[in-house]
Structure formats: C-alpha cells, structure tokens
C-alpha cells in the first residue's frame, strides 16, 4: 500500500521501470516456498541478499539479471535511495551477459502456489475503503493508510457461475464472500473470518436485485463487521454481464498486520464488480486462497 503511493508514485522511478527494467510484482510467500522452476530462480536471487532465510519473509526490492545475478536488495521505501540504487545497477548491468542467459521454461510447477481461476467461473474485483473515523494527521505515511483502497479478487466456480446465470446465488458463494472478502485490508494483510465467526448471513436475490445483511464477530468480540448488502445481477443471453455488490456497515478492531485502525466502530465499504482482465491485478489469486486454494474453494463443493 505504502509502496504504491510513495515509491512507485515517484515519476523518475516509474519512468525507469517502464523503460530500463522488466518489472515484476510477486507475493514472495509463494516463491520462497515453491518447489518448481520459478521458486528455484527466485531463491537463487534472494539467497544473495540478507533475506536468505526462506523460513522467514524475504520481502523487499531486488534487481537481478536474467542469469539470477543480484545487483541490489533494498527494503527501504525512501524513493531517492531506491532511485540511486536503480541507477547504479543499470551502470553495473551487462546487457550482453543477460542476453546470453537461457530463457527459463517451467520444467516443474508447484500447483500449491501456481493458482489459476476456476475454469468456466468468474472473477470479481473487490475494493475496500474505510470511509471515516481516522483522527486528523499531518504524517504523510499515515495519510496514505487513511486514504487507502484495498484490492483483492473473488473467484467464482463454474457451478456458482451457472447458478448466477439462472438468477440464483449459491450459498457457497455467499459464504466465501463473507469469510474471505468482508475484511479490512486497507492497511495490510487482514485476518479472514472463521466459519463460526459468521453470526448472521442473510441474502436474497430476486429479479436480479440482491439484498441482505451480515454480522461477523470474533469469539472475544474484539473484531467484527455488521453490514448491509445491496447488489445488481444482470444476465443477458445466458451470460452474466453485470454483477455489482456493495457491502456497507460498521467495522471494529484490527488484525496482527492491520494495526492503526480507527478507534471503536468505523464505517467500512466493500465493493465487488466483474473483472474483465483489463486490469493488471485481475490475474492475482485471492488473498484467502494463498497456499490454500482447496480451503478457499471448499465452499464450492458444499
């Protein structure tokens, strides 16, 4: 979140990435564990950095050549420092050596981490925003968090897609929305909801109009979300052409990696809309499926 609005909002960095580098964005929790060609290549690069314990996070910025030779590792968000390191790496880079590297092909694929959307299913973009409740601040980093919009994707199975075509909302889909997507991911990786934390979940779909309410709460009551749901489902010639859903309500609490939430209850909105593949993030697997696609999709079979 912070990187998007600071490091990669720097015009010189963005320009260099567009013209002089091949940029790639990854969830390193996958690559550092993957037992396949991509994982081996990532660990070859990361092993040359201080982040060479693959039992721990290896997050940060790396610049390497196609042979896997590391030029620098940096985990500091100061754009000017990163810019200096990028420019230095360009002067050290040998384009001939890189051109002689063999293009890697996926000789092995670790299916635990190489997740693809369900065939015949749908992908919805999920966006989240805290609408109010933060105290005023002059701190630019806090401001970024306070104005942040979280992004995730919802995967819908082929069976659920078929039900939507028939104007019905599968219970499995509703449960997945509640457990994995009605979360506050605006300040980092959020905790998802456990099955027994769904206290109430009602939703009806009548003539393409979806309306419902949800109550989610941890056993200790420290985190929760009480909200209304409103949606529109349009099916034309047997195809889902619109599936917009908005969840609006009061959230409270925070998770281990989402500290700094407003005090008490605060309004949180979560919106869903069909992904058409035109956004670079449309292909990113859902956060709730991270290393656990079967669990995320488990609801599909119920």
């Amino acid at each position, binding site marked *: 979140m912070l990187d998007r609005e600071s490091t990669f909002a720097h015009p010189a960095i*963005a320009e260099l990435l567009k013209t002089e580098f091949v940029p790639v*964005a990854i969830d390193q929790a996958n690559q550092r564990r993957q037992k396949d060609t991509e994982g081996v290549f*990532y660990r070859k690069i990361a092993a040359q950095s201080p982040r060479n314990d693959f039992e721990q996070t290896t997050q940060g910025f790396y610049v390497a050549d196609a042979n896997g030779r590391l030029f620098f590792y940096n985990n500091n968000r100061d754009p000017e420092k990163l810019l200096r390191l990028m420019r230095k790496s360009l002067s050290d880079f040998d384009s001939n050596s890189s051109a002689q590297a063999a293009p890697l092909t996926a000789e092995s694929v670790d299916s635990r981490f190489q997740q693809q959307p369900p065939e015949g299913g749908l992908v919805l973009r999920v966006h989240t925003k805290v*609408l109010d409740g933060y105290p005023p601040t002059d701190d630019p980093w806090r401001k970024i968090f306070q104005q942040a919009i979280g992004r995730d994707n919802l995967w819908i199975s082929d069976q659920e897609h078929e039900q939507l075509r028939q104007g019905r909302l599968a219970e499995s889909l509703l449960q997945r929305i509640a457990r994995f997507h009605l979360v506050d*991911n605006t300040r980092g990786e959020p905790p998802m909801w456990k099955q027994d934390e769904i206290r109430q979940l009602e939703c009806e779909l009548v003539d393409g109009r979806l309306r419902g309410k949800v109550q989610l709460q941890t056993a200790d009551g420290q985190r929760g979300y009480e909200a209304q749901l409103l949606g529109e489902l349009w099916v034309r010639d047997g195809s889902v052409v619109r599936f917009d859903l908005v969840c*609006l309500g009061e959230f409270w609490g925070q998770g281990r990696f989402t500290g700094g939430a407003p005090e008490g209850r605060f309004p949180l909105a979560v*919106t869903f809309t069909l992904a058409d593949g035109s956004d670079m993030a449309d292909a990113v697997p859902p956060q709730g499926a991270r290393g656990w696609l079967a669990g995320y999709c488990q609801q599909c079979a119920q």
Partner: protein
Amino acid sequence: MRSLSGLVLTMLLAINCLQADELTQERFDQLLQEVQPAKDAMWRTIPWNISLLDAQRQAVEQRKPIFIWAMDGNPLGCT
C-alpha cells in the same frame, strides 16, 4: 432527568460509534464509483508482470535487468 440522561447516553454512544449510512440505491451507485483506485495512479502505469519466469524471459529478450517487487501478499492486490 430521565430524558436528559438518555440524551447524554446517546451522545456518548455517538462519540464512540461512527455509524455507516443507510445503503440506499443512491449510496450504492456512489460507493461503486468512489471505492475504486485512481486509473491514472503512477504505479498503475508501470507494466508489472506477475510471473517471475515471464519476467526472466523478457529480460533475456529485451536485454534488461529484472526489478522484483516482493511483498507479503501480492503487492498489486491486498498489501
């Protein structure tokens, strides 16, 4: 007195509880528009790959170094 204490209680609750609006059709339309990342945000103009192998192959072809943005959670997604 009873109504006064009720008023005070209501005010105290209001301080600790920022209520969400009623989810009307108008609010629904507004939120669909409002809760979206800016299309012209600088980081979105960068042609990010999401596969390191694709990036490696491009690096060979284009004779460029690879810039890896590695986070906990996909940086184009939830973090």
